[in-house]
């Protein structure tokens, strides 16, 4: 009896009229797509010049971003063509997305990221001009992503992008490896003994991080110059932690031996993990050590691996990243497998 009442009650609550069609928010404007319209149709119809071409999920011109929680409400066809890392960033193809629920939509370059407070725990030199910054904070990130660190002091406010070198669950603190440039803002800040200070971190950003599809590749090739080691230091340890079973190459280069850092830790990691091949390269001859003098592009070109089955992670200056991308691509590495974190000078 009670049950029957309950069932009746449930049925009587069924809406008599159809729910209004879900709408999307874009640049502060509410847009309601027609019943057969995709997100792309609706945005173009509203006059927003979203890049597009094939309208069928093939060309991937129309990548947009939504909030992670809203992504699952979009059709699989709008997510599947993208890499796992892109999907993890909330990316989808607007041309294949018909709404089932209201969502916020952003161009990838316009998505705002949350800000976090972080306490500076320690600062220690790693070589003549690179320092390790250890921070306490509490947000989720992937090794290889980057954050924007903002600092406000008497001189004003400044913000810089730094890669995350730590691995959640493995390292106690969030770790940055920063090259100190004399006369730069960061250098000034260091002189004020900032241990204990609170800084603002905005992010995490970027999709240069390890996903399941990378772990299935035959080779993982991590190549960095200078503090390009920072994201790779996180990625290599994450790969080992996830028992990556292919061959793992970490190639770290600097102009001269003094530019290398974390040498002992890297060597120790290679000793403990036989599948890890470590190569330390220097461009200019100098004192001898565990490094070799080589042109990094030539070195990578001559590697005896199947590039068509390799996943690559590149980090360093923009120029280096572009050139290495091309080197690896011409050796047969699929473009989809090349992940890069280019440091833009600021």
């Amino acid at each position, binding site marked *: 009896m009670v049950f029957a009442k309950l069932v009746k009650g449930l049925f009587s609550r069924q809406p008599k009229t159809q729910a209004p069609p879900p709408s999307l928010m874009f640049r502060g404007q509410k847009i309601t797509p027609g019943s057969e319209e995709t997100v792309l149709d609706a945005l173009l119809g509203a006059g927003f010049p979203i890049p597009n*071409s094939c309208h069928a*999920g093939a060309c991937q011109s129309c990548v947009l971003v939504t909030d992670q929680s809203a992504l699952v409400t979009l059709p699989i066809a709008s997510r599947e*063509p993208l890499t796992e890392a892109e999907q993890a960033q909330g990316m989808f193809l607007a041309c294949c997305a018909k709404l089932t629920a209201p969502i916020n939509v952003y161009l990838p370059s316009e998505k705002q990221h949350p800000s976090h407070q972080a306490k500076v725990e320690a600062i220690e030199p790693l070589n003549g001009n690179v320092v390790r910054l250890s921070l306490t904070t509490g947000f989720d990130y992937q090794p290889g992503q980057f954050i924007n660190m903002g600092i406000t002091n008497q001189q004003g406010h400044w913000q810089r992008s730094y890669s995350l070198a730590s691995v959640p669950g493995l390292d106690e603190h969030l770790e940055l490896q920063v090259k100190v440039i004399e006369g730069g803002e960061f250098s000034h800040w260091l002189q004020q003994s900032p241990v204990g200070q609170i800084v603002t971190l905005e992010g995490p950003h970027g999709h240069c991080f390890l996903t399941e599809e990378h772990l299935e590749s035959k080779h993982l090739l991590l190549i960095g110059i200078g503090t390009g080691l920072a994201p790779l230091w996180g990625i290599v340890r994450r790969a080992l932690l996830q028992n990556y079973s292919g061959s793992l190459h970490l190639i770290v280069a600097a102009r001269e031996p003094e530019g290398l850092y974390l040498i002992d830790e890297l060597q120790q990691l290679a000793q403990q993990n036989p599948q890890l091949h470590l190569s330390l390269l220097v461009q200019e001859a100098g004192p001898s050590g565990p490094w070799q003098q080589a042109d990094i592009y030539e070195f990578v070109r001559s590697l005896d691996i199947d590039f068509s089955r390799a996943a690559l992670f590149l980090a360093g200056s923009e120029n280096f990243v572009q050139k290495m991308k091309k080197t690896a*691509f011409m050796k047969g590495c*699929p*473009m989809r497998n090349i992940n890069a974190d280019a440091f833009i000078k600021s």
Partner: protein
Amino acid sequence: MFGLFKKKKDVEKSVFEKLGGAAAIDAAVDIFYRKVLADDRISHFFDSVDMANQHAKQKAFLTMAFGGPNAYTGKDMREAHKHLSLTEEHFGAVAEALVGTLQELKVPQADIDAVVTIAVSVKDDVLNR
């Protein structure tokens, strides 16, 4: 009779579908882009472009040229190339890379011809004529 229908349907299938749709286009773009970058007549045009962006644009172009879904208007193609002062020779080099790609993918000649016809149809947009 059914055989007849089947045959007709096969003929109507685009190169895009025959290759395996969107998922297969990535591999085709990789081959095509490598050929373009290896060709001294045109590789310098790509020295300073972002490779991932360029790859995405080529994916849109190949999808269209292979008879796949597209909303090609010519406007973006014209905009992207007009400052480059391109000539017939440059266009020919890209067309060669396209034919080479299709040959490598073992696409039959009749289908290659169909793709070339579509590619040639964008020539005026590329050369800004």
